[in-house]
């Protein structure tokens, strides 16, 4: 076991004294630091949250699933069950957003009548949540590798 311990320490020492300094010298900038981090992770939908988004995120969390916004939204019907899904599900995590692209497209029909926001007992800023979700989808889409670019959608019938 001592052998293994020595082996472990040897490699760490080699790294610290030789290999790491060499790497620092010769590695190009785009493979270090922030550009490297973003390149690695955003392709999987793991995009950063900006400072403004972070500041607003906690207000999104007020939804208690009472269903009042769904009951008053004029767009409910067809495939769309109401705006609560944005607070309850879509805005909680970014990696799945590309799968939700079509439902997010329903937002294009949203006229911001604000009935949903006015009906909410918890004053959840639904319109802000819509904007946030759309923005995040755009970011994730921009980061996706080319072969998984969005396919043209069929005509969305209401």
């Amino acid at each position, binding site marked *: *076991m001592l052998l*293994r*311990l020595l082996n*472990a*320490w040897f*490699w*760490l020492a080699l*790294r*610290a004294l030789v*290999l*790491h300094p060499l*790497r620092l010298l010769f590695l190009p900038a785009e493979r*270090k*630091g*922030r550009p*490297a*981090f*973003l390149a*690695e*992770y955003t392709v*999987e*939908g*793991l*995009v*950063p*949250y*900006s*400072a403004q988004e*972070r500041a607003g*995120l*906690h207000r*999104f*969390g*007020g*939804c*208690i*699933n*009472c*269903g009042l916004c769904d009951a008053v939204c004029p767009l409910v019907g067809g*495939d769309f*069950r109401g705006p*609560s*899904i944005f*607070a*309850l*599900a*879509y*805005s*909680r*995590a*970014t*990696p*799945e957003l590309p*799968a*939700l*692209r*079509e*439902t997010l497209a329903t937002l294009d029909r949203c006229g911001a009548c604000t009935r949903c926001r006015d009906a909410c*007992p*918890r004053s959840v800023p639904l319109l802000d949540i819509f904007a946030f979700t759309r923005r995040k989808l755009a970011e994730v889409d921009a980061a996706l590798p080319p072969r998984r670019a969005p396919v043209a959608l069929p005509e969305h019938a209401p």
Partner: protein
Amino acid sequence: MLDLVVIGGGVNGTGIARDAAMRGLSTMLVERKDFAAGSSGANSGMIHGGLRYLLYDRKVTELSCLDSGYIQRIAPHLLFRIPFILPVVPRREGQAPGLFEQSFLYGAECYFEEYDRYQPLKNGKQHTRLTDEEMRAIEPGIVEGTAGALTMDEYGIDPFRLCALNARSAERHGAVIKNHFEVARMLRSVDRIEGVELRGVRGGGREEVRARAVFNAGGPWAPKIAALAGVEVKIRPGKGVHVTLDRRLSNYAIVCKAIDGRDVFVMPHEDSSIIGTTDDDYYGDPDDLSIHDDEVKYLLDAVARTFPAVRQARILRAWAGIRPTVFDYGPLEDRLSRDHRIYDHEVDGAAGFFSIVGGKLASFRAMSEEAVDLVCRKLGKGRPCATHVVPLPGGEAEAPEASMLARANDIPVFAAARLAYRHGGEAGKVLALAEERPELRAQACACEGVLLAELAFSLRNEFADSLTDLRRRCRLGMGVCQGTRCATPAAALWSRERAATHEAALGELESLLDERWKGHRPVLAGEALAQAELLQNAFFTTGALPCR
């Protein structure tokens, strides 16, 4: 006479049962409460690569990363990547980072660079080092004044699904699965254990099962089970508390230092973030864990020092589990290190009885292999291990694309996406249930996208028997509303699947609500009260359930 009875349905027990069954041993798996109802369901849900063993035994790190790779191969749909950010904060708060912090950063980066060698084994990315500004450009929620940060990544997994899939795989290979059965006593002769007597916990009567080998994988209950065999197994139980937030606060895990110097993570996990964990020696009953306000405060304070935004986050619930750590730390003996022990109790006068203690979620497959190797040696039979190549149910084929699945089946897209996560290539099988009964197409839960068809599938095929089992398998009640909307349709579905009485269905509903309430209670003071009021409204103000 069976070859092997495995006691305990955590990740080790189900892993051992699967491996043994796949090697051709006639196997039975016995679990008292439900798969992953113990330690395996109360940890941080991470599959990591043994980073810390770089300091003692690189072989262990290599094997851990290799095994992470195997788990990816056998259950690709269940793993999700979690990038980690390790900010290097000044030793003393308020001070500017100095030589100590810079040296630490240098040393830590060298360490991570070594780890980079093994990352490819598990499709992990290379580390990066960030300056203080770069770090905050990526994650603006971290406090200022750090010396910079290091990043790397590991994987998260749904541990409940993992255990259930292990069990299903075991059954596919011929094992008999007895969920909701406990071992009432061991069948023994003078110096051998010859089997077990089982007692059904939710009905099911008593039966005697004879076997050549009995494996105790009881986790925190391992000592109790060993005592039934007249053998002593010691563990050092450590209580760990976690807290779940309602959404991902960040897509990156942030390593924070608690007041006592311990590491506490806030990490994304499925659609939430979880904060964990505490570590306190626990002397109480593993069946009766409670959570103190102090433990929750400890976690929040730890994270808030590095990531202040956590103070405004909505906390859904707090949960606790026991870490069944090995009792004594002796010299490094076996190739997998001091983290776990496998005992052959022949020396203790109970031949045919084995125990496994300790370990990590991430190394379950390798540990199970080691355990089954031992059993096969003793029994003189068994094919080679194949648990690292044969996929778990759902891992055989790629999960269908969510929007196509949704359109083809008239289900909500979010539910399709979550179905693809939880069931991978078997998503189609789940939806096939909706062909015979169209109402199963409906959602029970919008927060987690759980269809009634998924609940039915689990009740029929995944050894689920209660609503609480379903919350483990399907994330029923685990979302934002914590059961407010989904408990009722789930109870109704359960009632139909089990042809149960009205009273029994309401009893199941109450049990689920009680289980959820246990998690709310420690975190109610604050915004959670509005949800609690709605939940109480939905079930008690309406008179749907009786008050007690």
